[in-house]
């Protein structure tokens, strides 16, 4: 199997190198290097956004989530993703309009301009760094541990992490966002094909979808309804997850940048609808994989189950493709996130473009190393950490939305309340304050406070204020 993996790996790396050479930016400016020239068509836009969105969290995490917690995972991710598509198509256009007017370089810079205060930008940047770095790290470590388990005699876990981060930094530094997007397209296609071959094999094992669910029902009836065998999918859990996922296009900079740099409004609309269809088509096979695991490996650990479903139960060629698909999924999300953190930093810098780009590139390298260090240390569960990352950045959602939608310059109420919400959320996550306030989960409580603050800002404080800085 190692030989086939190495052959597939060499082919994959060769295509990556070819694409980097094709997309290499000689004169690195904010527009060409960080924003990919700002002229992205529908097809590339769709695949890069899909590859950025569907990470190792989807390939490893979702099958395991379906296996452990049952079909409520469909509501948790697929329904929330299609809700996100609706939000994207309704608000994306307004974000693009604001971005055009205020010379968009990143969401943090856009917030500085919109609020007319650096605090808003620092909050957006700080929130992104705090919640994205651990998420990037846990993806890298998840894949590295898995590769180590697949090839125990090859190299240690940290060396796999180093190779993955090395590849990401190398092509991000060389080709910029355009290289990342072309590679995302390759990786998105690879991920799609791989996950469907494996998902289909899982259904074929049972003969049909009906017999698959019959078998699952005979093993654990609880897997076929909410809240699932462990009671995870409560109404509050699902609502918090949905709010977090719906906010992604505006709160996670790697996605908002892609929304802004689409070639045209028409391309954005096609991309959004395509993304909804791709979300359904990508999550469906992970459901099949999860149900297969629920029947065949109900007591196995995540690593054992993923090892079986992706590798040992597949033909060698498919297994090699599965491993490459897994690496592609992790890389395509993590590189975009690391790069987006660099872009966010750039949008806060008021230096000359050349110097700002140099600093940004140094920090992209630094963020990569930071993610590598965290990945060697991290042990967290992939899906739940991803959800924490989404929820954490979603705390910034109301502030960002008020900034995007407001035609006037908002007061500092939203940035201040957002900082307090972020601190409260972090304290609750590390156990210093309770995770429930009354009957409400702390996240839902904080979302409610932020919603009230937004209403206050828009309907009371916003009135009589001056216009935004672009006018």
């Amino acid at each position, binding site marked *: 199997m190692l030989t086939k993996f190495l052959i597939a790996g060499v082919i994959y790396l060769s295509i990556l190198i070819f694409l980097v050479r094709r997309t290499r930016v000689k004169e690195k400016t904010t527009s060409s290097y960080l924003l990919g020239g700002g002229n992205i068509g529908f097809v590339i836009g769709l695949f890069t956004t899909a590859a950025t969105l569907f990470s190792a969290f989807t390939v490893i995490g979702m099958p395991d989530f379906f296996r452990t917690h049952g079909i409520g995972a469909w509501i948790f991710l697929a329904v929330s993703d299609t809700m996100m598509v609706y939000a994207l198509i309704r608000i994306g256009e307004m974000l693009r309009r604001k971005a055009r007017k205020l010379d968009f370089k990143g969401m943090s810079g856009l917030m500085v301009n919109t609020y007319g205060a650096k605090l808003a930008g620092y909050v957006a940047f700080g929130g992104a760094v705090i919640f994205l770095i651990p998420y990037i790290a846990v993806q890298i470590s998840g894949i590295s541990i898995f590769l180590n388990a697949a090839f125990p005699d090859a190299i240690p876990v940290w060396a796999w992490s180093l190779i993955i981060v090395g590849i990401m930094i190398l092509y991000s530094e060389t080709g910029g966002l355009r290289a990342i997007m072309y590679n995302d397209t390759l990786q998105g296609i690879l991920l799609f094909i791989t996950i469907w071959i494996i998902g289909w094999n899982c259904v074929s094992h049972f003969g049909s979808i009906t017999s698959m669910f019959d078998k699952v029902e005979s093993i654990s009836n609880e897997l076929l309804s909410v809240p699932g065998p462990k009671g995870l999918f409560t109404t509050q859990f699902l609502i918090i997850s949905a709010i977090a996922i719906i906010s992604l296009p505006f709160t996670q900079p790697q996605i908002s940048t892609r929304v802004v740099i689409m070639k045209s*409004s028409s391309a954005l609309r096609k991309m959004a609808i395509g993304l909804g269809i791709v979300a359904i088509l990508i999550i469906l096979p992970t459901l099949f994989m999860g149900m297969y695991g629920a029947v065949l490996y109900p007591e196995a650990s995540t690593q054992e189950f993923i090892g079986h479903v992706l590798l040992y139960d597949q033909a060698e060629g498919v297994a090699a493709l599965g491993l490459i698909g897994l690496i592609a999924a992790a890389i395509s999300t993590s590189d975009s996130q690391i790069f987006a953190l660099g872009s966010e930093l750039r949008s806060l810098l008021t230096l000359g473009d050349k110097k700002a780009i140099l600093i940004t590139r140094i920090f992209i390298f630094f963020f990569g190393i930071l993610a590598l260090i965290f990945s060697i240390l991290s042990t967290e569960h992939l899906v739940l950490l991803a959800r924490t990352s989404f929820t954490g950045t979603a705390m910034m959602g109301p502030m960002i939305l008020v900034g995007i939608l407001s035609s006037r310059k908002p007061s500092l109420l939203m940035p201040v309340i957002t900082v307090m919400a972020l601190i409260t959320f972090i304290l609750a996550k590390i156990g210093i304050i309770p995770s429930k306030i009354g009957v409400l989960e702390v996240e839902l409580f904080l979302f409610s406070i932020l919603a009230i603050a937004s209403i206050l800002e828009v309907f009371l404080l916003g009135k009589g204020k001056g216009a935004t800085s672009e006018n």
Partner: protein
Amino acid sequence: MKKRRVTLLKILDGLAILAFIASFSPLVTPEHITEPFIMGMPYTLWAGLLVSFLFVILAYLVSIIHKEDNNAD
């Protein structure tokens, strides 16, 4: 024309909000209920699939209404 477009968008937003509420109510996610099965799929799964398709269709309808609107280009 613009007024009609705004009205249609409000209707679609209303439907999206209703679908959001339904998704987290016993209508789509009743606790411990697996029946009726359709095409072998348990209730919450096929209801969830329908909601997913509904949101994509709503997004498509918004895109049709916005077709002539290219303000950000």
